[in-house]
Structure formats: C-alpha cells, structure tokens
C-alpha cells in the first residue's frame, strides 16, 4: 500500500476521502505562486481520480498496485543484475546483445516500456548514451521510472547535439579517441547500456558485481 509514503510535502499522505489538502495551505501561504500552482494540479489530479473511481473507470486497489510496483518493485537493481550476469556468463552476454528482450525475460523482467529491448555494449573505444528527445522513453522493466533530469529539457535538448558536454555535467570527461554513440529513442525500441566491467573485479560474484552498476551507467551518463 502507498499510504505513508506521500507525507513529505504537506505533512500528510493520500486521503481516500479526498479531503483537499490545498485548503490547509491557503491559511499560511498567501500569494506564493509555486504553492498555488502545486495546489491547482493537486486539485485537478484528485478530481479526475475521484470521478474515475465514482464512475467505476478505475479500481483504487489497481492504482495502489501500480504505484507500489513502480515505486518499490521495479528499478535499476533489475538492470544491474542483468549487467552482472552478462559480465559473468558469456552465453548470457551473447544472448543479451543478440536479443535483449528474450535475455531479460529469462530473468522475469518483462512488460510495459520494455517490449523491444536492445542492449548496447561499451568498449574501451565506444561509449553509448541513451536519450528520448521527444518525450521520456525509458526501459521501465530494467531501470524503473526515469529520473527527472532524464525527462528534462536540458538533457533532452543537448544529449544529441553535445553529448560530451552532457557527460561533463555528470563529471565524466571522455577522451577524444572514445567514440560517442547517442541513441535517441524515437520508436518503441528501448535501449540499455552495458558498461565495461571494472578492472580488478575478477574475484567478485555476480551479486557483488551488480552492486557496482548504477542507473547512470545503464543510461550512459556514467562511464
């Protein structure tokens, strides 16, 4: 259930009786534009949810299950396990590079926004970086929901035209002799980057290796 996770902003979580919490804020937040905007969208979202529930268009338990799944169950640890398996199992690596959709399905990672997955392998001379300039396409089954910066105008505008500058924003200064390959996710094919296995990790298990793999490695904003 999701109750209890939503209390950060206004001091209380989602109320199933749809008590409008923006009313509280007006008592101590006169004329604060940011809060006013937030209250407007808060009201609009609550309104549509309530209408949809009252008309039987959505099941509140389904809403909770969807949030629980994408907030807590699906995330970049899935992708990190895929990468670690590729690093330690040559047959799996070969399958992942040939047919990533099948490869992740074999680890039970399936579904929405990952129906057609392609894995991109970094090498000492190639660095891959993934973006969606038109919206926010992202391989949910292996990485979860995208971070705000991935969906933001600075990233979406510059990742295609100035990928090396974007990498510098992330503290990565790529040598000139490493080719950058940008992948703009304009269709329903989703991309995940397989980073290079770090040197000196020969004795680590797959579980230990997966702890070294971050979300940013698999987007391509870390090296």
């Amino acid at each position, binding site marked *: 259930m*999701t109750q209890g996770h939503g209390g950060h*902003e206004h001091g209380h979580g*989602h109320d199933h009786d749809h008590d409008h919490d923006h009313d509280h804020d007006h008592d101590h937040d006169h004329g604060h534009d940011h809060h006013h905007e*937030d209250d407007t*969208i*808060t009201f609009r*979202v*609550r*309104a*549509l*949810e*309530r*209408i*949809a529930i009252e*008309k039987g*268009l*959505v*099941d509140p*338990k*389904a*809403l909770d*299950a*969807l949030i629980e799944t*994408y*907030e807590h169950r699906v*995330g970049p640890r899935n992708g990190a396990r895929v990468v670690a398996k590729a690093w330690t199992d040559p047959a799996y690596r070969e399958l992942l590079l040939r047919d990533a959709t099948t490869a992740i399905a074999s680890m039970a990672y*399936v*579904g*929405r*926004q990952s*129906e*057609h997955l392609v894995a991109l392998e970094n090498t000492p001379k190639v660095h891959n970086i993934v*973006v969606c*300039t*038109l919206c*926010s396409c992202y391989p949910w089954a292996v990485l979860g*929901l995208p*971070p*705000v*910066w991935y*969906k*933001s*105008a*600075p*990233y979406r*505008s510059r990742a*295609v*035209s100035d990928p090396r500058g974007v990498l510098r924003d*992330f503290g990565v200064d790529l040598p000139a002799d490493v*080719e950058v*390959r*940008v*992948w*703009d996710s*304009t*269709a*329903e*094919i989703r991309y995940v980057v397989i980073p290079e296995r770090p040197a000196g990790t020969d004795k680590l298990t797959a579980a230990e290796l997966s702890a070294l793999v971050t979300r*940013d490695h698999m987007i391509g*904003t870390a090296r």
Partner: protein
Amino acid sequence: MNGGQDLGGMQGFGPVVAERDEPAFHHEWERRAFAVTLALGMLGRWNLDMSRYARENRDPADYLSSSYYELWHKGLERLALDKGLVTAEELRLGRAVAARDPSLVAPDAAAAMQILANSRGAKLEDPVAPRFAVGERVRVKNLNPPTHTRMPRYCRGKQGVVHVDHGVYVFPDTHAMGLGAKPQHCYSVRFGAEELWGEPRADVVHLDLWDDYLERA
C-alpha cells in the same frame, strides 16, 4: 508537429542537474497522476501514440513550463474528455455527475498487473517488405506534419545509413490520429555528428525511423 516536445538540438536550457538519491515521485499527486494515467489507459479507449499527442499538442510555452507529470495529467484530462469518459462539468466540480457506462469495466489489481506484464508493444507480424536495406544511405524527408510524428526536426533533410532493420512496427503518425497502424519497417539509422551539427567529430547519433520518413540518398 513542430511543438514544444521536439527538444533535440535546442539551446539555452542550461546544464543537466541530477538530484542525489532521487525518489520515484516527488509529490503525492504525481503518484496518483501516474497510476490514473496507466489505469484509464487500460480501458482501451486510446493508444500510447494518442497519449503522446495529447501531451505535446499544446502551446509550446505551456509544454515547456509544465512539469512532466503535469503534462501527463493535462494529456489525460483531454483524452478522457474527448473519448467521453468524463465531462467538463465533472472536471470542474471534481465529482461524478453522469451515469456509469456499464460496458466499461476497470481492471482490478491482478488484472492491471497482468496487462502490464503481457504488454505486447508495437511490433507487428504483417508481411510488409522493407523499402531499405541495412547499409543503404537514406535521407530524411522534409516533412512538417501539424499532427503527431516521431521524426525530430533535427534530423530532417539529413543523410544517414540504415544500421538495423527492427522489423514491422505500428506507424505512430497515423496511429495517434486514429487512422490505423499503417504497418511498415522501422530502422535504426546512424547519422554522423558532422552531418547533424556541422562539427568535425567522429561521434554518431542513432534514430529509429520508419519507411514513410525516408527516401534514398
């Protein structure tokens, strides 16, 4: 459409700023907007391409000043109105007024999870021949549809090489407008950074582009 969503190559937005230990959602309303968008979509009254068009088809100033989940919600309101799931009066009042439509059955939690897991995506089995071969040089047509398209303007008129033939896919330009899937091949096309941006560097950009966007170079 040449709208606010088509951001590739724009300038002036400043550096990319990543938040440390970022939560999946920043506000309770974002959770609800996300879940209601997915759940209402499961009723099958619209497709993903229609959802994208509903989010992007607005004044670019509105697009660029709205947060991500605000755009999701604004697009959802529009679709729910257009497809008759809710009325403008209901949205204004914040409660149901019109009667239920007994033909619409909301999936329960288990059914919703099944729908997500079984999502089949946009690949089709239609026996459509590819118009281009891997390795062939292509040019992106000079198309400016005022409706939904997945051809970013930064590749328009540019030459690239077909890198991978992904197979036959739903064509979003027609699918978003309710004009059918128009099955055709979708390719990964590789463009040099110099071709796209006029800069003499070896880097490349790949875009996934459909037959209808391309011509022989």
